C-alpha cells in the first residue's frame, strides 16, 4: 500500500502518455476519421497502426526481451481510453492486448522471439479467434478440433465474433487436441481459411473464421495444451479490463460533450443546463462515470500485481460490469440531453452510443459479468 501511493515519476510518465495519446488522436483526425472509416471493409488504417507501433504503444505489454516496453495494464489502459475518446477504429485491445497476452502467455519461446517484435512495431497484426457462440466466454476451444500429423496440425472449425479481424494478418485460433485446448497461429489467406465480416453498430466488424483442413506447422503451435487454457483466460481477463478502459474513454468524452451542450443550448431564454431536472440527470451520469473510473483504476492496479486466476477473474468482471453499464447509460442519456440533434447521424453523440454498445457486448456484457462475479465470489466464499 505505502509504496504504491508515492510514485511521482511513474505518475509523470503516465500524464505524459495521456497527453501524447490525446495529441495523436487529434492530429490523426479525431472522430472525423472514425466517421470516414465507418463501414469500410478495411475497417482501420494500417499506417496509423504503424505509427502507434513506432510510438511504442503496441509494445506496452510485450516483454522487453521481445522488443516491447514490458509495462503494465495501467499504461495500456491510458492508451486504450485515449484512443476510445476519439473513437479510433484501430483494434488496440483486440491486437495489442488480447493477442499479445495470448502469445506471451504461451510456451513457444522461439515463436515469441520471431513474432512479438513485429507485433510490437505494428508490422504484424494478429487477433485472437477463440469464441464460437454468442454470450459464451469459455476457453475450452469449443468444437474446433486440431489433430496432429507428421509436419504439424490439421485444424477444422468455425470461430466467430472476432474483433479487429477485418484487417488482421493472422489469427490465434484455439482448438481442442487430445491433451486439451491449444493455440495455433493461422495466417490470413492460408489454404482452407475463409473470413467473413459482419457489420457492427459502430461501423466496424466482427469476423467469422472458417477453417477447413487447415494445416499449421509445428513451429506455429503458440501455446501447447499444458498452458493454452491458462494463457487464453489470462488474456481474456486482461483484455476485459482494457475494454472497460475504452468504455471509460467513450463515456468521459460523451459526458463532456453533453455538459458543454447543456451550458450553451438555450431554450425558454435560458441555458438548458440551468434546469434542475437536467442538472440532476447530468449529476447521476457523472456519478456513474466516477464509479467506473475508480473501479477501473483499482482493477488495473490490482491486475498489474499478478493476482491468482480466481481473483483476476473477479476483478475483470467487476470492471466490465460497471463500465459497460455506465457506458451504455451515459451514451444513451447523452442522446436525450441533446434532443433531436442527438438522433441525427450528423452529430457525434450517436457514434459514441454505438461504440459503447459494441464495447459493452464484446468480451461479455454487464449481465454476463455480474453472473460470473456472483458465481466466483460464492465459490471463493466472499
Amino acid at each position, binding site marked *: 500500500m*505505502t509504496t504504491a*501511493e508515492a510514485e511521482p515519476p511513474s505518475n509523470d510518465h503516465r500524464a505524459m502518455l495521456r497527453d501524447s495519446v490525446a495529441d495523436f488522436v487529434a492530429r490523426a483526425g479525431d472522430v472525423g476519421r472514425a466517421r470516414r472509416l465507418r463501414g469500410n471493409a478495411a475497417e482501420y488504417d494500417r499506417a496509423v497502426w504503424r505509427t502507434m507501433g513506432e510510438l511504442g504503444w503496441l509494445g506496452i505489454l510485450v516483454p522487453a526481451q521481445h522488443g516491447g516496453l514490458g509495462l503494465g495494464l495501467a499504461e495500456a489502459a491510458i492508451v486504450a481510453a485515449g484512443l476510445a475518446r476519439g473513437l479510433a477504429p484501430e483494434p488496440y485491445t483486440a491486437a495489442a492486448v488480447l493477442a499479445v497476452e495470448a502469445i506471451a502467455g504461451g510456451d513457444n519461446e522461439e515463436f515469441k522471439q520471431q513474432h512479438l517484435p513485429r507485433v510490437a512495431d505494428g508490422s504484424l497484426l494478429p487477433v485472437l479467434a477463440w469464441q464460437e457462440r454468442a454470450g459464451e466466454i469459455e476457453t475450452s476451444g469449443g468444437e474446433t478440433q486440431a489433430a496432429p500429423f507428421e509436419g504439424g496440425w490439421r485444424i477444422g472449425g468455425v470461430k466467430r465474433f472476432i474483433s479487429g479481424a477485418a484487417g488482421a494478418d493472422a489469427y490465434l485460433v484455439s482448438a481442442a487436441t487430445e491433451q486439451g485446448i491449444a493455440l495455433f497461429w493461422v495466417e490470413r489467406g492460408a489454404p482452407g481459411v475463409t473470413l467473413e465480416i459482419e457489420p457492427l453498430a459502430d461501423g466496424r466488424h466482427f469476423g467469422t473464421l472458417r477453417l477447413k483442413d487447415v494445416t499449421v506447422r509445428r513451429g506455429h503451435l503458440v501455446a501447447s495444451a499444458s498452458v493454452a487454457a491458462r494463457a487464453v483466460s489470462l488474456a481474456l481477463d486482461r483484455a476485459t479490463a482494457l475494454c472497460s478502459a475504452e468504455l471509460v474513454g467513450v463515456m468521459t468524452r460523451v459526458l463532456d460533450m453533453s*455538459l458543454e451542450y*447543456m*451550458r450553451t443550448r438555450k431554450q425558454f431564454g*435560458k*441555458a438548458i*443546463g*440551468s434546469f*434542475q431536472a437536467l*442538472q*440532476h440527470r*447530468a*449529476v*447521476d451520469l*457523472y*456519478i456513474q462515470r*466516477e*464509479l467506473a473510473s*475508480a*473501479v477501473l*483504476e*483499482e482493477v488495473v492496479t490490482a491486475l498489474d500485481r499478478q493476482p491468482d486466476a480466481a481473483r483476476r477473474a473477479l476483478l475483470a468482471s*467487476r470492471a466490465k*460490469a*460497471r463500465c459497460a453499464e455506465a457506458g451504455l447509460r451515459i451514451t444513451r442519456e447523452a442522446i436525450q440531453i441533446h434532443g433531436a440533434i442527438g438522433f441525427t447521424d450528423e452529430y457525434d453523440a450517436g457514434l459514441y452510443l454505438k461504440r459503447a454498445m459494441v464495447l459493452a457486448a464484446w468480451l461479455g456484457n454487464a*449481465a454476463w459479468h*455480474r*453472473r460470473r*462475479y*456472483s458465481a466466483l*465470489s*460464492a465459490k471463493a466464499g466472499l
Partner: protein
Amino acid sequence: MSPAAQHTDYNALSDEAFRAEVRAFFERHYPENLRYILRRARWQEMKDWWRMLYEKGWIAPNWPRERGGMGLDASKMLIYAEEIERHGIARPPDQGITQVGPILMQYGTAAQQTFYLPRTLSGEIIWCQGYSEPNAGSDLASLQTTAVADGGQYRVNGQKTWTTLAHDSTHMYLLARTDRQAKKQEGISFFVLDLKTPGITIRPIRNLAGHEEFCEVFFDDARLPRDALVGGLNQGWTIAKALLGFERLNIGSPRRPQYALRRLEMIARAKCLLGDSGFADRFIALKLDIEDLAALYGRFVGQVRRGEPLGPDVSVLKIWAMETWQRLTDLLVEAGAEEGVLSGVREFAGVKADILTSFYYARPATIYGGSSEIQRNILAKHVLKLPS
C-alpha cells in the same frame, strides 16, 4: 484534564502499529451490546465509554495535543475512523469534539476556550446543534430565529428543530439572525449557550422508527450573556461552513452498507433466496454497487492521505453511499416478505436481524447532512459547472 494524550505522539507510530493499538483497545473495552446499533446511542448508554476514552486521552482524535486531543494527522484520523466503523462503535453525542471544539479554537476568545474546551473533553458539557428550523432546512441560510442585542445581552426568540439529542445535551451551538437587513447569509451569528437558560423549552420528536432522537427547541426571550457570541457579529455563516469536508468523507464510508450487505446475505442464504434468479440479479448488482463505492471512497481517502483538501466532488460519495444503503434495506424488506414487516429483532434460521429498524434508519440518510438533492445541486454547480 485528560492525562495521557499530551505526552504521546501517535503520528510517530507506523500506520500499522497505530491501527493495531486502536483496534486492540476498542476490542477490549467497547461494550458488546452497543456494537452496530442502528439508532443513535443515548448519553446514558455512552457515558462510560466516553469516560474511558477521555481517561485514555482518546476522546478528541482531531484536537491538538496541547488542548488534550490526540493531534492525529489526516492519515491517522482516517485509521481511527475506520477502526470505529469496523468495530461498529456507536456515535456518542460528539458534536462538541467534531464541531464546537475546532470552531472555538479558531474563533473563540481565550476565556471561551478556557471554559468550554476542557469541559467538552470531559463530557461535563454535551453539545447539540441548533441549526435547522421549521422553515429553514435545506435552505439553512433563511433561518429566522433572532438574537437581539439588549443591554449587554442577547435576547433570543424562535424555534429550532431536528436537534439531535437535545434532551441529552447541556449546551447548544446556535445560528441566529442578528441583522434582518443584510443579505441572508450575512446577517447570521454563531452563539454557544447553556440549555438551562430560562426561556428555553425542549420537546422530543418521535421518529419513524419509534425513537426519540431529535427534538424541537423553543426560545422565548431567552437571555444570553454577551460572551455567548463566538467570532464576530454576523460571521456565523462563515464559521459554520468551515468544517464540512471531512464529515462528508466519513458519511461516504462503505462500512455501513457493507455491514448491511452481510446481514442481507445471511438472511438471503437462510431463506434460500440466492437460487432465485430475480433476487440474485438484484443482490449481485447491489454487492457490486458497494464494492465500487469502496473503490471511490479509496480514491478520496488517498487524497486526504496525501494532504490534499477535499473538493466539492466528495458529494458524490455521500449520494452514492446513502442511496445504495437505502436500496439495500429496500431489498432486505423484500427478502423478509411477511417477516420483513414484523417489528423488533427476529430470527431467520439462526440469523438475528431487525429488518424494519434497518429500513427506517436508511430513510433520513438521504436527507440529513445535506439532502441528496442539495448534493446534486452542489455537484451541478461547482463540479459540472452548469449555469444557474
